[in-house]
């Protein structure tokens, strides 16, 4: 297997909120310590519910925002807050595709212009003629037709727009592609087309993907490794099959059991979690999951568990044993 191209260690991103007249200042720990590696040709999926910091993670990796703490190393080079300003080529290495293909394309630019824009800004030495040629080649690579070059975004369907967004992200030959919920705005029949496109591109260009999603069935199909987040903290990470088949953290187990499976015969025991997600502004002390966890003890309420283990790591004092069924009484109570 090839060497990792990106290493993240203890990435944190906190936001300071100014208090109003009646409230004190607060810190939102949107991302609180994530470590992982991205390898060419492989996909790391980040899953979790809203407010778990998965999109913040995507933004930090794309260098849209600097991490508050922790280090990001790309191709052996440590990223400083001013690295991007000093070396614009760095930004070209990591590109992002956003969730909403309706909002992420400029409605006043033709597709061709949209595709040529990154080259114009970052590769001023490329001639206009070559720029156009590269954009046209890219259009073909993502499965669009040559006549689409002159058209505007409103003339496209959601799936086609997402193809354009992928094409634009690839114009600068990035090594890493961050996919922030790339298919969740698309219909099922279109979703599979885009997922296939992403698989083909990965094989062809040896890209490393960071795939942010909340849809576990897509993730299971698409990724190699999995990082499960809850309220800014990674709670479990490891190879996909190990995490899916034998989740150790109770939250992962609950998340998996809550995900609807398209199989009407399978009557599974669904773990009903108590209560709702706490606000990221007000993360409970100790393990962030303890108020909703059926295994929580005094220790969980006071001490923050750390990620431990080898390939398959989890942050829990009372990990689930393989095959363990949650006690129905406590798990069923709402």
């Amino acid at each position, binding site marked *: 297997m090839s060497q990792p191209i990106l290493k993240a260690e203890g990435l944190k991103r906190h936001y300071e909120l100014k208090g109003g007249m009646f409230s004190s200042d607060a810190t939102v720990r949107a991302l609180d310590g994530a470590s992982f590696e991205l390898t060419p040709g492989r996909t790391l999926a980040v899953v979790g519910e809203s407010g778990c910091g998965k999109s913040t993670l995507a933004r930090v990796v794309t260098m849209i925002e600097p991490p508050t703490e922790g280090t990001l190393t790309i191709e052996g080079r440590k990223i400083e807050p001013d690295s991007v300003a000093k070396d614009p080529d760095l930004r070209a290495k990591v590109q992002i595709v956003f969730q909403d293909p309706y909002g992420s394309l400029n409605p006043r630019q033709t597709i061709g212009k949209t595709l040529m824009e990154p080259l114009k800004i970052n590769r001023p030495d490329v001639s206009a003629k070559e720029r156009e040629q590269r954009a046209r080649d890219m259009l073909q690579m993502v499965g669009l037709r040559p006549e689409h070059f002159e058209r505007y975004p409103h003339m496209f369907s959601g799936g086609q727009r997402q193809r354009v967004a992928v094409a634009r992200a690839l114009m600068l030959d990035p090594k890493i592609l961050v996919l922030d919920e790339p298919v969740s705005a698309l219909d*099922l029949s279109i979703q599979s087309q885009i997922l296939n496109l992403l698989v083909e591109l990965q094989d062809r260009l040896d890209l490393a993907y960071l795939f942010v999603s909340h849809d576990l069935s897509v993730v299971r199909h698409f990724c190699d490794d999995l990082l499960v987040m809850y309220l800014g903290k990674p709670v479990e990470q490891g190879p996909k099959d190990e995490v899916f088949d034998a989740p150790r953290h109770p939250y992962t187990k609950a*998340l998996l*059991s*809550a995900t*609807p*499976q*398209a199989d009407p015969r399978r009557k599974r025991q669904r773990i009903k979690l108590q209560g709702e*997600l706490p606000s990221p502004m007000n993360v409970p002390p100790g393990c962030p999951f303890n108020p909703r966890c059926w295994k929580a003890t005094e220790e969980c309420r006071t001490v923050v568990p750390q990620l431990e283990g080898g390939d398959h790591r989890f942050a829990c004092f009372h990990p689930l044993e393989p095959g363990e069924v949650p006690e129905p009484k406590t798990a069923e109570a709402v």
Partner: protein
Amino acid sequence: MALLEIRNLSVDFKTAGGKFRAVDNVDVAVDKGDLMAIVGESGSGKSVSMLAVMGLLPWTATVTADVMRFDGQDLLKMPARKRRQIIGRDISMIFQEPMSSLNPCFTVGFQIKEALKSHLGLDRKQRHARAIELLEQVGIPAPEKRLSAFPHQLSGGMSQRMMIAMALACKPKLLIADEPTTALDVTIQAQILELLTDLQKNTGMALILITHDMGVVAETVDRVAVQYAGRRVEEQNVVDLFDDPHHPYTAALLAALPERAHNRLLPTIKGVVPGQFDKIDGCVFAPRCQFADARCRAVPPKPAGKELGDALCHYPLIKGQPQNKEMSA
């Protein structure tokens, strides 16, 4: 007798580009205590057909139907005033975006009691008691306190519970849930779906779930109607539908589910859903169908019969194999 019976429902919208048929000859039959789903992608007319039942479509829409009957009463011939008494009381609906379906200017208590007042004529005390009872029923802790909360003080899951409480206020016979969990997280989605099915069981009301999520369908309902481009292409009970879909669209849709995939590449449905200006003579799915032939492109198909899930197809599938094909070829 069916609780809700609709035959040949069509909805046309007046648009700048001419008439657009959003729902085309759809039949719906729901019995008392039924638990069914309408699935389809965007533009399949699944929401519009139910909004037509509710009478909630804008003036640009023209609704036509041969029969539209609810609980023995003809909804088509009924005066508007009478219809309004049924809508919201015997048939109620909850929507996808709980946050935007609640009025931000009023407390949720006020909004729940409003239905009780206009439909049931309860006095103030009774309304208050009933509202608390409803919030308890949908699993909201400290209901008395929550009644005076404003929508912005509630989370998404909480707002959806409020919407459900409001819909249940008058003990409806039929509840239509239009993508009730699409805007919610999976762990909250599980809670809400469980709540809806429990209520359906305990109160004996019929529930129509409109969704695009095959996973939700498989785990929640008994019967499924599949819509595509404004037409109902198939209707079966849920186990049979997932085992042996009879319409090529359903089959292709199920095959495209990532969890059913065997390879790294998923089977896809080529092309896109037809739009307003795509003129299609034959079967609406023919341009994307892998089994389509000249007959499919020229002649609109008829429902294939009960045992084949009324599949709207010339060559309905049995175990993935198109039928009758040799004879006509």
